[in-house]
């Protein structure tokens, strides 16, 4: 099995882990982080595809590799914008909840109620 295929499988695994984190974490910052894991998995998959396109004395196809550089920079700018939105939400409301119902600060032991309103 060659390097590109192995990294391709790894990339698929990373995308899966990121998607799980995106859904299973309630904190928006953790969602942003998980989304970056998904993004890096997609980048790695494209990198594996670039490696398969090696030729003309190059170790990889330069066109997808150049796309990746563009992609990484744009992903950073999108992350910075998302973090800025999140920090403003926190400054404005004092909390960062994404729950549809506005709710008070959670009382200790109120986890089940919080989870229910989260699903609703």
């Amino acid at each position, binding site marked *: 099995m060659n390097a590109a295929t192995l990294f391709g499988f790894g990339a698929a695994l990373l995308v899966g882990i990121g998607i799980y984190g995106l859904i299973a974490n309630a904190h928006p910052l953790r969602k942003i982080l998980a989304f970056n894991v998904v993004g890096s998995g997609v980048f790695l998959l494209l990198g594996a595809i670039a490696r*398969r396109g090696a030729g*003309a004395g190059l170790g990889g196809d330069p066109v997808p590799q150049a796309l990746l550089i563009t992609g990484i920079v744009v992903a950073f700018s999108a992350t910075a914008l998302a973090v800025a939105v999140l920090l403003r939400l926190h400054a404005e409301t004092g909390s960062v909840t994404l729950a549809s119902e506005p709710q008070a600060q959670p009382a200790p032991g109120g986890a089940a109620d919080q989870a229910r309103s989260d699903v609703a």
Partner: protein
Amino acid sequence: MTDLVIIALVLLLAGLALFAVLARDAFAAVVGFLAYGLLLTLAWVLLRGVDVALTEAAIGGGLTGALLIGAASRLHGTEAAARAERPRAGTRALAAVMAGLTTAALAACVLALPTPAPSLATAAMAPISSLGVANPITAVLLAYRAMDTLLEAIVLVFAIIGVWSLAPDAAWGGRPGPLHRADPDGILAYLARLLPPIGLIVGLYIFWTGADAPGGKFQGATIVAAMWLLVIMAGLADVPPISRRWLRAGLVAGPLAFIAIGLAGAATAGAFLAYPDGWAKPLIVAVELALMPTLTLILALLLAGAPLRTESR
């Protein structure tokens, strides 16, 4: 042998990604993500993408990590509330099933990739001697697909406008982020005096060498931006207020110069962003020189965030 190294690396990456996703504490998760970004750099080297590895180390790992660490420490107080909102076990199980199906589908796609693999490597190398740049990735970024790079520079300008527009009304036109104070005789202030000259040279070298070897303006600009941020975080200098004219001019100078050279190409070479014969190398260097200060400013200011303080504070 190499296969074993790759399998070990992939497993480590997956382990660190799992830690970054599952860790209880956001700060721990971000530190896991930083380590993940560094290991990913190694993966890029093994995939023969040294330019991508440099970008990943500088931006994907470094700047994104720094951004998330800053946000995690400022949002520390909100974590307990978010833990209480965690989806129920049933939702999480469904999420795990969906994530597993996505992974399986992608793995099937990897196995179904066509052989021989389609490649533009030969097409990218064929006209490269007429461009005068030896690094094929620079040739793609600034000659064959210069439009992508131009649009990317514009996206970055939009991103900083978006971040700034999140400023509270009172702080509009003021200085981004919180005021940093550090012990003027401490190790941070010492390093902030010692490292910037070295970092500046390394950054400019990586920028300059990008024409012929791995490197380029994004990687170089990130290093220079990091040096500036180090000086800011050590309290030796403050972020300029966003109302400064030189700052705003600097943010658009790079893309405007790029567009001007592109329009000149339309007049002299018959297409927008085309280079006249024999002029490719000087024009590519001119575009990179124009973009470098703009990228440095934008990358540093994206990390600094929205204005929070008026000019005097």
